[in-house]
């Protein structure tokens, strides 16, 4: 059902979170590689994997691996399906290495390493392959789409982390010292400051040694901001690097102001404490973000230490601030990404997720504005997803725009499904329509990446854009950020849409549930009620607490519990729905129920129960009516047959009387012939029994009996009918032939009703032949069986059925007979249908008509549980 989609996106989200968590802990590239291998092992259950990257010389080299021998690594080192210039690289899957001739030269080493299947997952950054994951399998492996998607997700995150790690590593590597430890570097000096700091913040009159030391320190930490504060914390000196880092041209803007005033309110108190500590002679450390006077957010790592005068007293304070924004950004981006993923996973509203995403990216690049646009389901119109830093007017202007080549970078990116970089909004033709609106708020460049769905085929969901206030192209770092953000936005939108689809289908399901009157019960495989749904709780026979958690054997009457148990067993065994009908007393009236039991959620059972009392009553009314009619039909038959029946009865009675009177005469003779007397009395008994049987049959026919379903031998039933009508047929010169297949399997039926069917068909045949010469007449009764039903055929050589009336011959009151109401065939059909059989009539090729009646075998009926419903269809109560 609809659960599949969210399951897939949930899984993907879980993998994204796992990889983000693992990468978040990574301190260096090696950590990144091992995070990648861990995530692959965890999420894809691959025990052997490796990470390879292109060297600067374009050779693919192992960076990390798990479960590979050194021989193997040496053998395959350098192999790559891609070059550093490869674009649009897709994963390569090798379900069976021995079936891939392109890998033939590696077959021996694969065999040695026991590698039966492989996957090459490209690590792509900005469209180019930077390396690959390899997944290795001991056995042949059928890759599924989800697996490949998850591997690609991991690859995307890892590629980003690798690129970032490399950039950062380069920056760190250029430092003379790997860490920022100015206390160790500077603390070794003795500071003797006796000179004055001039009003411009220049040091003057300092002893050359001190100045040299400060300069030395300045050179050593050339990229750090050096400040000297007086004991009141006022800024009295700042070096050039400091001014540059703050984006300030003239030191006078800053001097003689309390340093803490440059910081945001919440940072001031901790900073004061650090200054106080330095004033007390200790070295204080402090890390905090602070906007530069130009408005750029930077993250600072600060060390404050006392400057000791010649007399050993603390005269001033030295503050060394290092801009640690780059590593901090990488970390904060990692954390932010994780936060976004967690928001997605916890089902936060899409707008909030996208807004956070935009903020995170904006925090990474100074002065940038981000926007997320969504593409409508119609694939044409654009909706504003989130743009927290764009003016509302501009957002409103974009919202609802149709896609098009002149509707900004995003419109084009969505249309092409490719990143679009516009370096000059003022001139680019793609900005024709929105140009004025964009330039009016100072947007000069825009770089857009399409947001694609993770499902294949990939669908464009929207675009992620970064706006810049100057006309320029993005750095690699910026472009990677845009693409990573687009990827995250894709995950968010995918998840949101699938959740929405699920929610809607749940809403729909609930609506359907509300609309249907059925009751639903969820039961465990051993018949314990776990849950239920009813539309109107009042209609439950017992309150929920009386059955939830209890077994059907505790809740239902024993016979019904037994019936359900059998249905459960069959449903679990066959996975097919099992139906059963039953009736229960509810509020002092019997009500009828139909239950459908199906296996659901593994070994649970769903029982859908419907109150079918109304339908059942109508059916029973119809059954009662049919029985009434059948009875009328039988009475009519008897009426027609009264002569024959009288004959059937008077024959044995005549024999009895004659035998009895003969016996009396024998008694008068002497000597008594006892043997003859005994023989005579035996004959009396025999004839009496024969008369009794006739009367019994008559009584059966005349009784308004309820149907009594028994397994019946249809041959026997046929013979009984022939016996009953023999004298009549004789009198009417209707020669009867039978061809009854011996040993046919039993049918489930009511003896009298099936006799009635055959009787009606026999009488109908006789009537059809009444105008035919006696020599031409023939009534043929045949039975045959196959594996589903028994067929009884009654063929005559009479006048046949007028061609136009073949269909209506079973309708009531349609008759060609001179006697009767024309109910015989109609009643016969209704009886046959009630037995789940069918009947039809056809004209013979030469002469006469044939009626075929099919009745299902008893065991077939029982196995389909139809027996219950036949019984209830035929028998009210």
């Amino acid at each position: 059902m609809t659960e599949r989609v969210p399951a897939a996106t949930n899984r993907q989200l879980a993998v994204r979170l796992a990889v983000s968590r693992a990468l978040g802990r990574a301190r260096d590239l090696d950590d990144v590689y091992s995070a990648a291998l861990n995530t692959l092992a965890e999420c894809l259950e691959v025990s052997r994997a490796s990470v390879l990257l292109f060297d600067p010389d374009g050779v693919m080299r192992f960076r990390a691996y798990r479960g590979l021998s050194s021989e193997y690594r040496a053998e395959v080192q350098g192999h790559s399906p891609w070059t550093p210039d490869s674009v649009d690289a897709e994963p390569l899957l090798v379900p069976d290495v021995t079936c891939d001739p392109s890998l033939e030269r590696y077959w021996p080493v694969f065999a040695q390493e026991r590698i039966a299947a492989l996957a090459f997952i490209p690590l792509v950054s900005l469209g180019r392959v930077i390396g690959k994951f390899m997944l290795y399998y001991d056995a042949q492996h059928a890759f599924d789409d989800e697996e490949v998607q998850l591997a690609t997700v991991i690859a995307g995150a890892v590629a980003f982390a690798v690129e970032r790690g490399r950039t950062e590593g380069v920056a760190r590597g250029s430092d003379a010292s790997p860490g920022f430890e100015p206390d160790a570097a500077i603390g070794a000096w003795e500071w003797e400051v006796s000179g004055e700091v001039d009003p411009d913040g220049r040091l003057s009159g300092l002893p050359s040694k001190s100045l040299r030391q400060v300069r030395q320190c300045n050179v050593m930490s050339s990229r750090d901001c050096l400040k000297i504060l007086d004991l009141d914390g006022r800024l009295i000196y700042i070096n050039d690097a400091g001014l540059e880092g703050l984006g300030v041209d003239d030191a006078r803007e800053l001097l003689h102001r309390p340093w803490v005033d440059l910081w945001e309110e919440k940072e001031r108190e901790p900073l004061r404490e650090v200054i106080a500590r330095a004033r007390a002679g200790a070295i204080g450390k402090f890390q905090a973000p602070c906007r530069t006077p130009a408005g750029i957010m930077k993250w600072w790592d600060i060390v404050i230490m006392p400057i000791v005068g010649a007399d050993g007293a603390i005269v001033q304070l030295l503050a060394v601030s290092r801009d640690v924004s780059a590593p901090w950004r990488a970390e904060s981006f990692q954390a932010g990404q994780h936060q976004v993923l967690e928001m997605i996973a916890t089902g936060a509203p899409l707008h909030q997720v996208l807004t956070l995403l935009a903020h995170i990216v904006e925090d990474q690049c100074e002065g940038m504005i981000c926007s997320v646009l969504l593409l409508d389901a119609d694939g044409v119109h654009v909706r504003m997803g989130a743009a927290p830093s764009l003016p509302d007017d501009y957002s409103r202007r974009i919202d609802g725009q149709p896609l098009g080549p002149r509707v900004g970078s995003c419109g084009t990116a969505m249309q092409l499904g490719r990143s679009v970089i516009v370096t000059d909004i003022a001139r680019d033709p793609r900005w024709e329509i929105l140009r004025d609106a964009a330039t009016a708020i100072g947007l000069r460049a825009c770089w857009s990446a399409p947001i694609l769905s993770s499902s294949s085929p990939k669908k464009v969901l929207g675009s992620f854009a970064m706006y810049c206030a100057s006309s320029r192209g993005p750095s690699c770092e910026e472009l990677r950020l845009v693409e990573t953000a687009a990827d995250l936005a894709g995950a968010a939108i995918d998840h949101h849409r699938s959740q929405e689809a699920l929610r809607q289908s749940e809403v729909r399901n609930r609506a359907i549930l509300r609309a249907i009157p059925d009751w639903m019960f969820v039961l465990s495989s051993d018949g314990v009620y776990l849950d239920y749904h009813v539309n109107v709780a009042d209609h439950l026979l017992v309150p929920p607490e009386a059955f939830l958690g209890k077994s059907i054997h505790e809740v239902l009457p024993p016979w019904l519990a037994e019936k359900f148990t059998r249905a459960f067993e069959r449903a679990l065994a066959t996975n097919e729905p099992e139906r059963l009908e039953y009736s229960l007393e509810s509020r002092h009236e019997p009500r009828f129920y139909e239950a459908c039991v199906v296996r659901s959620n593994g070994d649970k059972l769903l029982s859908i129960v419907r109150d079918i009392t109304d339908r059942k009553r109508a059916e029973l009314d119809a059954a009662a009516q049919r029985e009434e009619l059948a009875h009328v039909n039988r009475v009519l038959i008897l009426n027609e047959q009264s002569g024959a029946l009288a004959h059937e009865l008077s024959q044995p009675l005549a024999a009895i009387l004659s035998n009895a009177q003969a016996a009396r005469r024998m008694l008068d003779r002497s000597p008594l012939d006892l043997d003859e007397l005994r023989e005579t009395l035996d004959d009396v008994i025999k004839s009496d029994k024969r008369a009794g049987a006739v009367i019994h049959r008559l009584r059966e026919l005349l009784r308004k009996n309820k149907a009594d379903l028994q397994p019946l031998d249809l041959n026997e039933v046929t013979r009984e009918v022939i016996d009953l009508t023999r004298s009549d047929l004789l009198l009417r010169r209707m020669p009867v032939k039978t061809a009854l297949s011996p040993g046919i399997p039993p049918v489930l039926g009511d003896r009298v009703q099936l006799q009635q069917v055959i009787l009606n068909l026999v009488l109908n045949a006789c009537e059809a032949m009444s105008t035919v010469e006696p020599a031409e007449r023939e009534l043929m009764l045949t039975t045959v069986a196959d594996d589903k039903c028994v067929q009884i055929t009654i063929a005559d050589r009479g006048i046949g059925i007028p061609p136009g009336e073949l269909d209506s011959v079973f309708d009531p009151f349609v008759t060609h007979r001179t006697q009767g109401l024309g109910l015989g065939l109609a009643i016969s059909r209704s009886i046959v249908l009630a037995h789940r059989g069918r009947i039809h009539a056809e004209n013979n090729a030469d002469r006469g008509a044939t009626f075929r009646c099919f009745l299902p075998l008893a065991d077939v009926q029982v196995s389909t549980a139809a027996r219950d419903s036949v019984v209830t269809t035929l028998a009210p109560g």
Partner: protein
Amino acid sequence: MTDVAPLTVAVVDDDEAVRTALRRLLRSMGHNVHVFASAEEYEDRPIPADCLIVDLRLPGLNGFELRERLRLRGASIPIVFITGDGGPSPGDTADHPDTPSLAKPFNDGDLIAAISRAMSASPGVQ
């Protein structure tokens, strides 16, 4: 019981029980009895008999038809019809007033009376 003098009686009835019982009854009265299951069987091997007791409803030729054929051939054997379904229709009886008929079951006395009446009506006996 005032039985008539011993006679030779032919009984035609398709019902074996009836046939056997009649043979037993007539024999107990001292008569000679020959039984036949059908009119055709009787015609195939007719025996000289004083009286013919015929069931009206028979497979093949029925009782009336047998009498017709016998009459047509000039045989004047006295006949008693017996019937299991209320006797011959009134028309038939009117046509043949000399042929008594008995509805089954019948008393031994009625049977003797019918035989006597048939024999007295029959020209052959007169």
